[in-house]
Structure formats: structure tokens, C-alpha cells
């Protein structure tokens, strides 16, 4: 008899339950701070943080176990909009957002802000074009919509293929990120850590499917947002940028402009090449004024936005709300919760850079003697694990801007140490990074396993399968895909960020137009949708291969991170052309589209199907 069986009262009690949970987490942080005062080592504190949070997630996963189809696939469609917003926030913000984004802005400056704009504005497309209509449809998975709207197993199968390619690319990056944190905290080899990471991820999702993932994701959102904001508030206090640095760091951006001139950022080029690391050469707020720079910015924004609106693990979160109107509200809440992290990331990048560059701050290292910098704890620690390197290229014994190399990925994780914050904050940030990567991995694994179990197995292979069998198949697939993901992650084929961008490009190439036009263009028909998916994915993949490995010069700066532009373009043309060349959909399908467009009335698909 778990508390999750008390359906009505459980949902009513959500604010109280998560209030107590948040309070408990704060108490835990205070306990860790006391432990640090009493002489506990930073290592011990980090381990306790990771262990404590994982035990909580696993506990929630266990309590949410279920053998009901609609609970397993759509959390019983009773997740209130605000909580679904938090769950989506955690589902959405991955290791790339939490760990890599601020570091990217630190090293890359303005061009990198395209990720910040793209990963928020995509939700406008989700709310206006997609979520409420998919909710009205009443589907369990995204291919479920494609398969029913366009009819026929071929359309459904194409959607499953696109979903699996996009989500699998994405999930290997998340298992990679989870494994990176685990190997760092537990000091075990990465190849072992990815399997431990998988175990923790599956503990949340195996028994309760979407219901379990939903309630752990809410818990993970709370951990990750606290972990992201606390160091920034703290650092801002120390530097005198007020309580809400997000609105007041303009002065820091200005100060960086002076310092960049003073320390010759971009003038002094690095004289050595250090693999995976770079020295700062870009001015923080500088925006280039040539055509290719402009095109690169807007195409990256477009890819991230259309990818957002096509990624099944995000869209399926809106299948869990009680109503169509709630699905819309929930998108707005999701964006608000995501915004809290995304508008803080540039502030974090700016304030951390100031810590490193500004000679008026005790923490600065540029312009100091190399001997004194090398004796700093954080420089030694991150240097030892191969994340940063100092090379005195001009042999003057003083650290210049072009002599300090680091991996951009470490900015968020190292900030507490750079700024001289207590070790308890470092532990908190590690737990946050882990929550971000785990929650996204959970959502993705579930999206893949559900598509295979519901669309491939139940709808196409064995439509007579009984509930028990369906749910066991779903779990076996979850396990198998998780194992495959870990095996690929252990190979470390690509970086975290590259893999994430590709996932967006794959998803938009194959799914964006078939989804949007399925609702907004009644004339769209089956051959058109199939052409859109096959040609979109095919052309996109071809372009990726050609610019990445085939030695082709990218067209107009559209490189491998942006191949979705080409794929989605081809998809649109193919879908419209083939649709117009073939017969319009039958009256029944057109009536179904009419029905999807209004919130009133029953869902198109029965509530359990």
C-alpha cells in the first residue's frame, strides 16, 4: 500500500509532499555544511550528496511502480500543469544544459548564446503548434499520433525509426554525462561508471514507467535548480552584484570589456595546441557583423527550436496532463522553470570569467606569477585529471591569457572552487549535474522503449497481447536499450554537446513537418508524411556525413551542428510535393483532424488503447 495508490489525495497533496521534500533537502545541505565545519573531507561530502539524492530518486521510483497501462505510459493523465512543468524542466535540461552551457558561453561568447535562445524559444512552437493537439489526440507516444493520423503501419514505423535515431543519439550523451560525474565522485574508471549510472537511471524508470519518471523528475528539478542558483547568488554577494545578479551583471559585462583590452584577449593567440582544451580568445559580448556569422547564429537557433518541438521525450510529457487546456498551461510553466536556469547561465559565465580575469579580485589568476597559480588547490585538482593546463609559452613566469588552457565543460563544476566557496557547494553542484543528466536519460530511455513496446510490438506485431505481457515487454526493452546506450557511451565516440545538437537535428529532419502539418494542414496525407520522414531523415543524414566525414565544404556556414536545416527543408518540400501529387485523405481522417483542433469532447484515441 504505497501513498501513490491514494490517487485523488496524492495529487491534492503534491505541494505539501514536494514542500517537505525540498525542506528535507535543505536540511541535508545544512548537515553537510556542519560536517564540513567538523572536518569532513570534500570527497566524503560529494559522495554523500550523490548517494543521498540517488537513494531518494530510487525510492520514488519504487513507490510509483504500476501494472496499469495508462499509468505506465502517461502517468494516468493526472499530472497538474505546474508539476508537469517542473518534470519537463528536468526532462529537458540535460547534462549539456547544466554542465556544458555556461562553459560554452565562457569560451565562445555571443555566438554560443544561440543555444540559450534556441532552447527556450522552441517552447513557443510546442505550445502554439503541437502540445494541446497531441493531448487532444490522446496518444501514448509520438509515433502513435503519426500512425493514427496518417494511417498504416509504414508511417508509424518511419516515425519509430526517427524517434529511435534521435533519442538514442541523445541518450548516449546523457549516460556519458552521468558516467563522467560518477567516475569523478567515486574515482572509478569511466567504463565502469557508465554501468553504475545506468543502474541508477533504470531504478527510477523500470517499475513505474511514466508515472515513476514524472515524480522523480520533479524531485530532480528541485535539486538541479537549487544546485545551479546557489553558487551564482553566493558569488554575486561576494563580488557586490546584488541579490539578483541576473539583472545586475551588466556592470560585470562592461568590466570584462576593459579587462579584455588590458589583457589582450584575442590579440595574444595560443602558441600551443592542447587537445580538447582551449585558451580564451573571444570577447565576451562581441557579436560579429558578417553574413556567415549572422547565418550561423540564426540557423543554430532554428535547429534547436524546431528540434525542441520534435523531440518525443519532451512532447510525451504533455500527454500526462488532465486536459488540453492544462497541456497548454503546462508548456508555459515548463518554459518558466527552464528560463530560471537559462537566464542564469550567462550570468554564471560572466561572473566566473571576472573571478579569473579581474586583478582586483583575490581569486584572479591572469597576470599572477605562474608559481603562485600552480599552487592553487583547484588548479592542481582539475589539472591532475586533465581538464586544465598552464603552459608558460613566453617563459616570463607570469600567466598570460593565452597560456591558460581548459576544457569549457568544467566551468560550472569548478566555479565553487574557483570562487573559493565551501566544499558543500561543490557537492551540491555535482548532485545537480547528476540530476540533470539522469532525468533526461530517464525520459529518453522511456520514449524509446515505449515507442518500441507500444508502436512496434503491440500495434504492429502482436495487437492481441494482454496488458501484463505488454508491460513486461516494455520493461525488457527499457533494459535492453539502456544497456545498448551504456555500451555505446563507454566508447566515447563524440563529445556531450555535439551528440545533443545532432539529436535535435535528427528529430527536426524527420518529424517536425509531419507533426505540424498533421494538425495544421488537413490535406496532408499518408504518402506525403512518409516521404517527409524518409527524405527528411535521409537528406539530413547525408548532409551530416558529407560535412563531417566526407570533406564537403558546408553551405553558407551550415555545418554538422546545423544539418537539421537541410533535412527539415527537404522534408517540407517532399511532404508538400508528394501530398499534392496524391489523393487527399478520406472523410474520416479529415473529420479526425477537425476533432483534434477543438479541446471539447473525448480524445480521438480511447483512454486505454
Amino acid at each position, binding site marked *: 500500500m504505497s501513498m501513490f495508490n491514494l490517487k485523488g489525495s496524492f495529487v491534492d497533496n503534491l505541494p505539501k509532499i514536494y514542500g517537505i521534500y525540498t525542506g528535507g533537502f535543505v536540511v541535508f545541505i545544512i548537515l553537510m555544511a556542519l560536517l564540513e565545519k567538523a572536518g569532513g573531507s570534500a570527497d566524503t561530502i560529494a559522495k554523500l550528496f550523490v548517494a543521498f539524492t540517488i537513494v531518494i530518486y530510487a525510492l520514488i521510483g519504487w513507490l510509483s511502480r504500476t501494472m496499469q497501462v495508462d499509468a505506465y505510459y502517461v502517468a494516468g493523465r493526472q499530472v497538474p500543469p505546474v508539476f508537469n512543468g517542473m518534470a519537463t524542466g528536468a526532462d529537458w535540461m540535460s547534462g549539456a544544459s547544466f554542465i556544458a552551457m555556461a562553459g560554452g558561453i565562457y569560451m565562445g561568447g*555571443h555566438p554560443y548564446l544561440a543555444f540559450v535562445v534556441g532552447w527556450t524559444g522552441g517552447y513557443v512552437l510546442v505550445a502554439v503548434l503541437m502540445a494541446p493537439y497531441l493531448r487532444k489526440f490522446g496518444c501514448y507516444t509520438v509515433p502513435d499520433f503519426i500512425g493514427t493520423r496518417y494511417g498504416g503501419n509504414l508511417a508509424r514505423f518511419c516515425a519509430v525509426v526517427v524517434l529511435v535515431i534521435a533519442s538514442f543519439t541523445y541518450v548516449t550523451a546523457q549516460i556519458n554525462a552521468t558516467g563522467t560525474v560518477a567516475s569523478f565522485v567515486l574515482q572509478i574508471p569511466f567504463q565502469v561508471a557508465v554501468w553504475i549510472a545506468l543502474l541508477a537511471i533504470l531504478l527510477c524508470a523500470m517499475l513505474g514507467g511514466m508515472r515513476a519518471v514524472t515524480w522523480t523528475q520533479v524531485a530532480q528539478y528541485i535539486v538541479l535548480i537549487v544546485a545551479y542558483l546557489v553558487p551564482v547568488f553566493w558569488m554575486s554577494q561576494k563580488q557586490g552584484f546584488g541579490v539578483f545578479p541576473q539583472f545586475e551583471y551588466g556592470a560585470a559585462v562592461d568590466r570584462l570589456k576593459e579587462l579584455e583590452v588590458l589583457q589582450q584577449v584575442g590579440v595574444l593567440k595560443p602558441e600551443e595546441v592542447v587537445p580538447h582544451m582551449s585558451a580564451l580568445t573571444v570577447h565576451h559580448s562581441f557579436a560579429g557583423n558578417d553574413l556567415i556569422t549572422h547565418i550561423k547564429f540564426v540557423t543554430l*537557433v532554428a535547429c534547436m527550436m524546431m528540434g525542441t518541438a520534435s523531440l518525443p521525450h519532451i512532447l510525451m510529457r504533455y500527454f500526462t496532463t488532465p486536459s488540453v487546456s492544462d497541456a497548454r498551461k503546462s508548456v508555459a510553466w515548463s518554459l518558466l522553470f527552464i528560463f530560471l536556469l537559462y537566464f542564469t547561465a550567462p550570468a554564471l559565465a560572466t561572473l566566473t570569467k571576472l573571478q579569473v580575469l579581474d586583478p582586483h579580485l583575490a581569486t584572479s589568476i591572469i597576470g599572477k606569477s605562474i608559481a603562485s597559480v600552480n599552487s592553487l588547490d583547484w588548479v592542481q585538482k582539475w589539472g591532475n585529471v586533465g581538464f586544465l593546463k598552464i603552459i608558460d609559452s613566453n617563459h616570463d613566469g607570469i600567466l598570460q591569457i593565452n597560456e591558460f588552457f581548459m576544457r569549457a565543460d568544467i566551468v560550472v563544476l569548478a566555479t565553487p572552487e574557483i570562487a573559493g566557496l565551501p566544499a558543500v557547494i561543490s557537492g551540491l553542484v555535482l548532485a545537480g549535474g547528476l540530476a540533470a543528466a539522469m532525468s533526461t536519460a530517464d525520459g529518453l530511455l522511456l520514449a524509446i522503449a515505449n515507442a518500441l513496446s507500444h508502436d512496434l510490438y503491440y500495434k504492429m506485431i502482436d495487437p492481441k497481447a494482454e496488458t501484463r505481457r505488454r508491460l513486461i515487454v516494455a520493461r525488457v526493452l527499457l533494459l535492453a536499450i539502456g544497456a545498448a546506450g551504456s555500451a555505446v557511451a563507454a566508447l566515447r565516440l563524440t563529445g556531450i554537446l555535439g551528440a545533443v545538437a545532432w539529436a535535435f537535428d535528427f528529430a527536426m529532419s524527420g518529424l517536425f513537418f509531419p507533426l505540424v502539418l498533421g494538425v495544421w494542414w488537413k490535406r496532408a496525407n499518408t504518402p506525403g508524411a512518409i516521404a517527409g520522414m524518409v527524405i527528411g531523415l535521409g537528406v539530413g543524414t547525408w548532409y551530416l556525413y558529407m560535412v563531417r566525414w566526407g570533406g564537403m565544404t558546408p553551405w553558407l556556414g551550415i555545418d554538422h551542428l546545423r544539418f537539421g536545416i537541410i533535412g527539415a527543408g527537404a522534408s517540407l518540400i517532399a511532404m508538400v510535393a508528394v501530398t499534392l501529387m496524391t489523393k487527399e485523405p478520406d472523410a474520416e481522417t479529415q473529420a479526425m483532424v477537425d476533432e483534434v483542433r477543438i479541446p471539447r469532447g473525448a480524445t480521438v484515441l480511447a483512454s486505454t488503447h
Partner: protein
Amino acid sequence: MSADISQKVVHWQRTKGLMIVHLVIWFIFSFVVHWFAPQLNKISFIGFPLGFYMAAQGSLIVFVVQLFVFVRQQDAIDRECGMAEEE
């Protein structure tokens, strides 16, 4: 029944209109504004270079506010056309 059908037509017309308005706003703050980032950077806004500010924060605030407004507007359309869900 025919009254209901004409209501459905009106509902979809208004829904489409709202969609276009919001996508125009979305387009401006996703693409147009950032195209002019170098020019905007010459203007200072609450201490920030404006081009940097829009990408780091300004566009994001517009998106968030826009979505909460959109939710209210679409709910109103659904209600007025008798297409809202029953509570």
C-alpha cells in the same frame, strides 16, 4: 448542428489568427533581433550591451511572458466559441 459547425469554423479561424500573431512575435525575438546584435551592442540597456542582453535574457523573457498570455487568449477563444472542455 449547423450552428455548431459554424462555431467550429469561427473557432479555428480565431485559433489560426492567434497562432500567426504569436509566431510573428516569436520570429522577431528569435531571429530578427539577433541579426542586428552588432548594432544593438552600441546601445546600453540597464548596464548591458543591448545585443548581448537580448540573447542572454531579453528574448527569453519575451518568450515566457508570451506563453502565459497565449494560454489566456486561447482559453478565452475556446470558451467564447463553446469549444472549451467541461470541468
